[in-house]
């Protein structure tokens, strides 16, 4: 089993390793390698899931089905291993099913893109990383795979990097999630300082023994990392911009899996949060704020993908609410249902965008006649999102509401209902604007290869709701069917939202322009996304740019200046040295040589070649010698003696 389990993430990784180095043409033709690897991973994930399902539900070590350590430092502080327990088994199924659906869908959606091979390679790498996240048995490995996911997200958001929008969005997404990742990394460091280990089964049981402050610190740092990845307030600003990427990639990464990784992380680390207590409250607060913020912002968007993006933010907030009540089952269950119906909605939006060549809902309308299949499956997804019985969203949302009641968070319960109302309202608005009325006459139904994955996801959305009890039992919690009263309340809320939306948008009972005019201030605030982008721009980006500018000035002025000055000085010094060389050293040598030549020129005249002239010289010399010896020397001696 160990090898097969390891193969689940390694197969897509191998597909990436195979596709990555190929030439573009070859890679475009070999994209099916990625789909084959994903299919094999799905098959293995099903095997793993069945194994986890059949494992004993109770007793010592029952939850952990499989535990394998990789050969690197087995059992040590940095032991890397795989963990298959009910949570990871469920996540495996979600990731592989949605991953395969998106890859098959992309055959149609990315059909004519010239870099489709690279797209598939990155999708494979992403799938490998996400599968490694859910299979990791320690926080360090989870963190590493987490960062690889961040890279893939960056690459796919900026997939059409020749345009400015996607390029900027990819940088924004990378930097904002990085802010959260710093928290994650610090949390890991604190965790390691406390327990000398990263392994789940060593850290989590030890958490209760930590000082409350230590547990709070670690929990809040991990939460900060999760907030970045899962686009929670105040780090949610990157997700709407991330819609600049290809729609199927948005469906996989920015709706179903990567953004849910934060929820998964908090669910995994929940014992630390419980040990802290404060961290749970913070999670709850962040979750409810995000749920309301995302829901309210979705109201005023006209871009179909942005509506879905804000909806994703809102639903992720819902999951954090569930985690904030220490109910990992509710959080994970909503993660699973949301992954299926939100990826379904994104894929539907992709078909619509493909067909109408626009993302602006004001330019759409009446698509239900032209695109019956898309309309059908999209409606299933939309109703699930709104939380209508008997679709999956109803059950998972109900569990979250129930967990709030169980924890006696009545105020939060009210806010959660309000968020549900908003959800139902904006999803109706979207549905009516796109499918009702008239508008896009030239639209056409999508290709089969795009519709088939959507139908599969819709089928899952239809039936998975009834699995809630089994799901909770599988995760080791006893959960009952929703109480009638609670179910009635949530259903009423959903229907009220849908009814209001229908009343406003389909029946046109309210002049939306007039409402906009009357609530101009509120509308402006929503239109400006609560001014958070502006705030970040003013508080972080601009000062950072100023600091960067100052550094650039320092670099150019001081450091480059110093370097250039030194270089100029050196040039000057070498010029002087050159002059010294030429004038003094060379000059001296040359002048000496000239003098020698000159002397030779003068002296050669002595050598006349005539014997008799030499003889005369000899005679002269003898005469001089005789004169010295006989006359001058005695005279000198006489003078010296006389003195």
């Amino acid at each position, binding site marked *: 089993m160990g090898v097969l389990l390891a193969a689940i993430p390694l197969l897509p990784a191998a597909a990436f390793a195979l596709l990555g180095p190929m030439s573009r043409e070859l890679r475009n033709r070999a994209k099916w390698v990625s789909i084959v690897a994903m299919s094999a991973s799905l098959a293995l994930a099903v095997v793993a899931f069945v194994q986890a399902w059949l494992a004993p539900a109770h007793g010592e070590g029952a939850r952990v089905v499989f535990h394998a350590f990789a050969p690197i430092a087995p059992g040590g502080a940095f032991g890397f291993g795989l963990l298959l327990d009910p949570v990871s088994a469920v996540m495996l199924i979600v990731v592989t099913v949605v991953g395969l659906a998106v890859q098959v869908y992309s055959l149609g959606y990315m059909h004519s893109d010239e870099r489709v091979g690279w797209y598939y390679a990155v999708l494979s790498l992403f799938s490998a990383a996400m599968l490694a996240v859910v299979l990791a048995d320690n926080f360090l490995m989870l963190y590493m795979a987490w960062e690889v996911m961040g890279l893939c997200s960056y690459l796919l958001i900026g997939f059409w990097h020749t345009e400015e929008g996607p390029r900027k969005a990819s940088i924004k997404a990378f930097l904002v999630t990085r802010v959260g990742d710093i928290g994650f990394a610090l949390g890991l460091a604190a965790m390691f300082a406390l327990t000398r280990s990263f392994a789940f089964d060593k850290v989590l049981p030890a958490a209760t023994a930590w000082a409350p402050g230590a547990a709070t610190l670690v929990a809040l740092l991990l939460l900060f990392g999760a907030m970045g990845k899962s686009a929670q307030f105040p780090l949610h600003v990157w997700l709407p911009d991330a819609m600049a990427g290809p729609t199927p990639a948005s469906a996989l990464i920015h709706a179903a899996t990567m953004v849910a990784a934060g929820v998964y992380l908090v669910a995994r680390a929940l014992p630390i949060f419980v040990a802290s207590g404060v961290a749970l409250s913070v999670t709850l607060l962040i979750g409810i704020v995000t749920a309301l913020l995302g829901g309210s912002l979705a109201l005023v968007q006209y871009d179909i993908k942005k509506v879905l993006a804000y909806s994703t933010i809102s639903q992720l907030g819902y999951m954090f609410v569930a985690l904030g009540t220490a109910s990992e089952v509710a959080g994970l269950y909503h993660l699973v249902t949301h992954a299926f119906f939100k990826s379904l909605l994104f894929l539907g939006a992709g078909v619509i965008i493909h067909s109408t060549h626009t993302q602006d809902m004001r330019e759409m309308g009446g698509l239900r006649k032209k695109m019956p299949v898309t309309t059908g499956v999209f409606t299933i997804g939309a109703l699930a999102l709104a939380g209508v019985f008997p679709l999956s969203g109803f059950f998972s949302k109900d569990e979250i509401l129930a967990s709030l009641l169980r924890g006696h968070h009545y105020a939060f319960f009210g806010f959660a209902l309000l968020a549900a109302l908003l959800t139902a309202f904006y999803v109706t608005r979207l549905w009516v604007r796109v499918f009702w009325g008239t508008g896009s006459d030239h639209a056409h139904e999508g290709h089969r290869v795009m519709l088939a994955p959507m139908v599969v996801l819709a089928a899952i959305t239809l039936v998975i709701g009834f699995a809630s009890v089994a799901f909770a039992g599988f995760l080791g919690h006893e959960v009952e069917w929703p109480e009638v009263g609670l179910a009635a309340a949530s259903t009423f809320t959903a229907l009220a939202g849908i009814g209001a939306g229908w009343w406003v948008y389909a029946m046109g009972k309210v002049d939306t322009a007039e409402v906009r005019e009357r609530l101009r201030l509120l509308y402006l605030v929503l239109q400006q996304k609560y001014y958070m982008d502006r705030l970040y721009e003013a508080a972080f980006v601009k000062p950072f740019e100023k600091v960067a500018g100052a550094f650039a000035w320092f670099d150019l002025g001081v450091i480059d200046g110093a370097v250039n000055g030194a270089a100029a000085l050196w040039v000057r010094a070498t010029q002087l040295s050159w002059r010294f060389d030429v004038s003094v050293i060379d000059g001296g040598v040359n002048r000496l040589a000239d003098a020698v030549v000159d002397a030779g020129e003068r002296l050669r005249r002595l050598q006349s070649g005539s*014997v*008799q002239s030499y003889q005369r010289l000899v005679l002269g010399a003898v005469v001089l010698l005789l004169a010295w010896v006989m006359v001058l020397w005695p005279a000198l001696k006489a003078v010296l003696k006389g003195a």
Partner: protein
Amino acid sequence: MKVGLDAFILLATALFSVGLFGALSKRSAIMVLMALELMANAVNILLVAASRYVTPATMDGWFFAVFSLVVSAAEIGLGLSLVLALYRKVRTAELDRLETLKG
């Protein structure tokens, strides 16, 4: 008038000077050789005269003079043959035309 050593020294000096002048000024190698003979004989006269006046008891100067005569006879033979060989080579015996070694 009594002929003394001074007269011989004077004679030898005069003869040497004539020879020196000839050796320095004559163009013909033969004439230069002859001038060299004059100088050699001036020295011989001086030797004999010195022997006669300074050390009459011995005959050192005589022997020196005879020795010198033999040497200059051999020398003049060698010199003449050199001049002959030179003439054969360059067809001249005039010294001022032999300046191949001029620097």
